[in-house]
């Protein structure tokens, strides 16, 4: 018999009784939900607590903010997806800088330029799918335009986040979007830049992934910025 059959046979031979069924949906239906300004404030506070830079922007002006941030950091090479609408807008804004960075697209598979990606790209700009207020997280579903390594390998990650897609908690996000019906090859929650506490419980950022996570959080016009940052 194969290892598979042996293992399954042993497991099937064990006595089994039916334990009470867990009701995850009922549990989360009974938990308090953060909404509106409170949700945004909570999300930003948790992200900032782990050294994420959260920048509130509007749909009309985020490319200018991105360009300013890129210029302020002296970034020379930036990876983005010019084939997407947001990537094209970002590329156009960056091109107008006095010293525009080299704008690279993920045009080929990683195999052909792994070393360059690791050694020569300073930053990447991607859009994220949604956010989670309760834990201060971003949800990313990398795809062919913005592959997995864009949010991982370059030392700085700029993430464009439409705050209208902020869910109260992880359960709300996966049920509203019916993730169980079909998962992408890779789905991620990102809650800050890479970090570690493996040396004497001291937190250090930039362990393997990005040292900096800069979120351009796009606010709808009806949200007042001053109100959002009050008591923040």
């Amino acid at each position: 018999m194969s290892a598979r059959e042996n293992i399954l046979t042993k497991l099937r031979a064990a006595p089994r009784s039916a334990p009470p069924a867990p009701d995850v949906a009922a549990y989360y239906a009974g938990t308090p939900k953060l909404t509106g300004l409170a949700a945004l404030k909570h999300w930003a506070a948790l992200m900032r607590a782990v050294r994420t830079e959260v920048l509130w922007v509007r749909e009309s002006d985020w490319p200018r903010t991105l360009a300013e941030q890129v210029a302020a950091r002296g970034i020379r090479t930036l990876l983005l997806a010019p084939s997407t609408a947001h990537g094209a807008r970002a590329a156009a804004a960056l091109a107008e800088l006095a010293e525009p960075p080299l704008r690279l697209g993920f045009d080929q598979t990683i195999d052909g330029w792994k070393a360059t990606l690791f050694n020569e790209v300073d930053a990447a700009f991607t859009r994220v799918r949604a956010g989670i207020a309760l834990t201060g997280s971003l949800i990313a579903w990398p795809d062919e335009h913005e592959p997995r390594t864009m949010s991982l390998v370059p030392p700085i990650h700029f993430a464009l986040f439409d705050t209208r897609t902020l869910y109260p908690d992880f359960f709300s996000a996966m049920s509203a979007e019916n993730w169980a019906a079909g998962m992408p090859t890779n789905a991620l929650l990102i809650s800050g830049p890479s970090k570690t506490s493996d040396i004497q419980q001291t937190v250090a950022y930039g362990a393997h992934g990005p040292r900096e996570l800069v979120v351009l959080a796009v606010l709808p016009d009806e949200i007042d910025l001053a109100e959002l940052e009050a008591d923040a």
Partner: protein
Amino acid sequence: MNEATLTYYPSRDFKANARAALADSNLRASFRGAMDFLMGKRAAQFPDAHELAELRKLGEAIRQKSLAKLPELLEQLEAKLTENGVTVHWAETTEEANAIVHGLIAAKGGKLAVKGKSMVSEETELNHYLEARGMTAIESDMGEYIVQLAGEKPSHIIMPAIHKTRADIARLFSEHIPGTPYTEDVDALIQIGRQALRQMYVSADVGISGVNFAIAETGTLCLVENEGNGRMCTTVPDMHIAITGIEKVIEKLSDVVPLYSLLTRSATGQPVTTYFNMISGPRRPGEKDGPREVHLVLLDNGRSQAYSDEQLRKTLQCIRCGACMNHCPVYTRIGGHAYGTVYPGPIGEIISPHMLGLENTVDLPTASSLCGACGEVCPVKIPIPEMLMRLREESVRDPHEKVAHPLRGQGAGVDKEVKLAWRLWTGLYSKPGYYRLFGWAATRLRGLTPRHQLGWTQNHVPMKPAPKTLHELMRERRKETGR
């Protein structure tokens, strides 16, 4: 790489190891500080006792349901993963698991594997196995990398290098990483590690990782981490091999939400980790990165023995948060290496006997004061003290006694002297004449009681029988009162 011989801490030497650890004041200070820190962080994450109680109840129910359906869920997981393009392998023993991993790497002509944190690969001693066959396996989790450089093993399942000071690590890095100056600055040390490992991701043929949760419904492997090395290992090399125990499967995607929350808050006191990585297949046509091949190795290694008994099955509910060890007064005082097993602390005491046999772990179930802290903090409510009592029972059960689900090493703790003492006791206490004679002799000859009474007199005054037996005292009282 470091050529130093790995240091082994066989669990058979537990008592000697524990004694040595207790005498090491630096080690004790390291663990005391680290455990206090982790206990404080966890407590801060659960300010609402009612929420914690409800969440633990939910976590327990999810894990118990998953285990009740384990064979069916494993088949569902396999079918779903296969549909997603992942190849599933099964291994009954650590040797089989290692051979599978080695075979996969060899088939690609690979030599270098970069590893994310995986306790199951520690269980199989995969690095050693691959190195003996001309391959190199580099640990990329900072803590694991540090213990690998030191030629040691992890002393904690979540924080592997918790026994190392920054000075130890500064010395290790300057000695083993070419061109590295001595520095005790933690940020600088992490950047040194980052640079050393980054090139490994580029060059590695294979990435190896563990799995925190395997979801049967969607065929998804979930990895929980802060550093990003897990994402690197599962994304950058052309092949990803995940290795995990058969108990890690859960049924529904939504089941992962409460378990993930319980895990991060119980383990390191974080509301969430930096990354929650959900992998549901290799690179699809059109995608530009991600491994072209993904394999999952499902390992038994004694888990089916724990499974066969409904009480001991609860051991398999574990989500490997390490909270039980953080709160264990024994672990805090002796550290992780003294146990001599991959999984130290209370969870190690109840899982290791299934993996290694009671004959090799007989002291572990006794390495507890049964204070109950482990069971109280366990996020999935494993009744650890109850499991410890049961294993103590099994370790002294007659090796020849026929039971429904015999454990490997049944009766390994049988001690001839103790057995003889109990036989005498049974004889004395079952015959009234002998019992009276014994009581009379013990009270009258109490002056002969030895002054040194093994471990008892280390901290207590010697025990001495009373001048008269209780029966005698009662008789006298009746006489006096006339009743």
